[in-house]
């Protein structure tokens, strides 16, 4: 596709430059504007001391941290608690999901047992039905469990985490399974000859070697949990128990009366840690997501 291979870059005329890379910059700038403009808007709205939606329309007309103070101290909307709840639920879910998924992936990748193929296919098939489809059944199940064991029933974080762990052996296991398969079996055999048992091989040898995919799966699970609304909204009833997604959605459920800049401040604070983590790990994430595809 190159038209100016022979010309040296510094000597190219404007016309050639445009035909070669210039138009690319035009496209890139237009699409970049589309991509970042809502983000600029939310940052601007969060810095705006006026609370309403209308007041947020002049970008960066006023800059202050009033709305950050408001959202952090409002007794009706316990934002810090929502943040904390989200952090705890998503972190625990992320870690345990990775652990359960890695255990299963290890078994599928390293061992040959009857029902292995059926097990793998089952996992692939079951993951096609997202958990939120069964939300009615989950709600009724958890409300029944709550009658017997109030500490893991409705309106508890433990209960919600347990429900999320139902999805631990889904797409995650499949991703990890593919990655585990890339480690040569000779490693295991060498360790076995040296007298290591399967537990030691798994914990001290395999897990450190697959750390990148574990990080990716943990992060994907973390982000997935942060975004999960349906089950959280049905299960968490008290405002103090709710997560960011449930609380912030309720906060702007009526745009006319919503404190829009306080919401934006909350959104910015909630998004920044996730975005930083994401950008930091994006190469691995994309690698992980496409691994299954490019290898097939």
């Amino acid at each position: 596709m190159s038209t100016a291979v022979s010309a040296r870059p510094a000597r190219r005329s404007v016309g050639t430059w445009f035909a070669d890379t210039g138009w690319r910059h035009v496209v890139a700038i237009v699409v970049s504007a589309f991509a970042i403009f809502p983000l600029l808007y939310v940052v601007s709205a969060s810095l705006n001391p006026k609370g309403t939606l209308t007041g947020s329309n002049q970008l960066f007309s006023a800059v202050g941290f009033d709305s950050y103070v408001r959202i952090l101290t409002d007794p009706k909307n316990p934002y810090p608690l929502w943040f904390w709840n989200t952090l705890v639920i998503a972190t625990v879910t992320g870690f345990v999901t990775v652990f359960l998924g890695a255990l299963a992936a290890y078994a599928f990748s390293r061992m040959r047992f009857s029902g292995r193929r059926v097990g793998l296919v089952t996992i692939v098939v079951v993951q096609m039905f997202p958990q939120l489809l069964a939300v009615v059944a989950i709600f009724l199940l958890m409300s029944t469990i709550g009658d017997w064991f109030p500490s893991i029933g409705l309106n508890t974080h433990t209960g919600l985490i347990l429900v999320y762990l139902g999805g631990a052996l889904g797409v995650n296991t499949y991703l990890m399974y593919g990655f585990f398969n890339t480690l040569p079996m000779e490693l295991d055999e060498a360790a076995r000859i040296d007298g290591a048992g399967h537990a030691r091989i798994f914990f001290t040898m395999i897990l450190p070697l697959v750390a990148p995919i574990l990080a990716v799966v943990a992060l994907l699970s973390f982000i997935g949990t942060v975004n999960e609304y349906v089950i959280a909204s049905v299960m968490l009833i008290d405002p103090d128990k709710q997560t960011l997604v449930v609380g912030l959605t309720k906060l702007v459920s009526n745009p006319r009366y919503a404190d829009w800049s306080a919401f934006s401040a909350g959104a910015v604070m909630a998004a920044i840690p996730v975005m930083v983590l994401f950008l930091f790990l994006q190469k691995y994430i994309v690698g992980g997501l496409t691994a299954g595809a490019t290898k097939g």
Partner: protein
Amino acid sequence: MSQTTIEQEAPQAPPTKRQRQAARIAEAASGSIRWMLLKILLLAIVDAIALYAAFVLVTHQEWLVLGVVLVVAVLVNWIYFSRRRIAAKYLTPGVIFLILFQVFTLLYTGYIGFTNYGTGHNGSKDQAISSLMASAQERVEDSPTYPVTVVERLGTLGLLVTDPDDGEASVGTNDQPLQDAPDATVEGGRAVAVDGWTTLSFAQVISRSSDIEKISVPFSDDPNDGAIRTPDGQNGYLYVSTLQYDAAADTMTDTRTGTVYSDTGVGAFTAENGDQLLPGWQITVGLDNFVRAVTDSSIRGPLISVTLWTFVFALISVASTFFLGLLLALVFNNTRMRFRNGYRILLILPYAFPAFLSALVWAGMMNESFGFINQVVFGGASIPWLTDPTLAKVSVLIVNLWLGFPYMFLVCMGALQGIPDDVNEAAAMDGANPWQIFRRIKLPLLLVTVAPLLISSFAFNFNNFNLIYMLTGGGPRFTDVSIPVGHTDILISMVYKVAFTGQTRDYGLASAFTILIFIVVAVISIVSFRKTKALEELN
């Protein structure tokens, strides 16, 4: 590619008995005492939890669940104490969660779809009878005044009642009819304390008055005898229900109007003219919910348009994000372009921003009267972005394009870089122009890589609840339909609304819809997996 590698990895022949024995001895020798102790400790915790659960379930008389808990506990112990079953040791924890919260809830959803579960039908028949009788209670006009004392045991409030005629004391709770309490302490003609119960102080009675007003202690085992209630925590009166339950005939009679309601098998006591007493109870209704979904025009109409829109939405979302992503990947696939990394970061920011926040922010920007887009971009116009049926759909697609193109961009970049350059050069030698090279060579190669991702993207958007719910809330609402759904609702958000919003919650109907979605998703998945042969790679 992966097929060959796995074949190499697989053992050539099954191990002989001697080899297996050797492996087991090595396994046993390698386990240190600390691992052993840790294993025993973890199993002890699991067993303690199972034992506690068993106790609780015995007190609730849940024998079936108790059986399941015990079987699972025994199975877990057997697996982890065994020297073999190594694969099971790794699979069990995840599989338990999978079975309980995915497989079981799936089957349970199937069951609920065949019941009338929902508002007015969420308990057993006995619960419905006692709840009906309690809600229809009226004070008996000439009832004597019973001196009462509010007592408590294990967090349950009860009444200690003194009979005004013979001074006999008796005690009971909402669930426990009055029982004689001959050893009660009596002061001034009023029983004030009884062994095993804590008497509430005056201050406690005042502070818990709303709970105390709700106490209704049945006079005897027969619900028709009425109940003692106390408005003030001091004096109790006899309340009798205006409904009379005849257990033999299985009918409810309203004593004021004389109307007889009988169990006609529809899950509620029904009068001859069709009036129902609610709450009713839960019954299996067979295919009623499905029949209703396809015959009741006020449900069928929205169901059809929601289903169509779900497909349109998912297909256009995948297509638009893929083409924009691909276009950008082609634009950026030029090593001489400067600031490529800078643009790249900017372009993937929408993907990194939590999706639910994006939808909420866009909802604010697209607000008809106050939003940024109308106020600033269109200079004060009032374009009904989210409230006009057609525009709302367009808005949903625009926002989903914003949300989804960075992912496709990243994926296509990766895939393009995976296509070797010599393919290009060979085609150029043969005289193909750039468009031909792209159309005939690059695109097919690219599609091999991204096709599975397009399918999973379709599946994701098919159930993209957050975007719909947070951007438009499914609105604008359909007029004159009996379920609370709107023009931009997709199947999954319709299920949520039928089950959890509005005045009536119809779990049965919602689950029937879920089953329909299951079938659709299953068919699509099977067909697409057949096409991509993804399952064949699993060996």
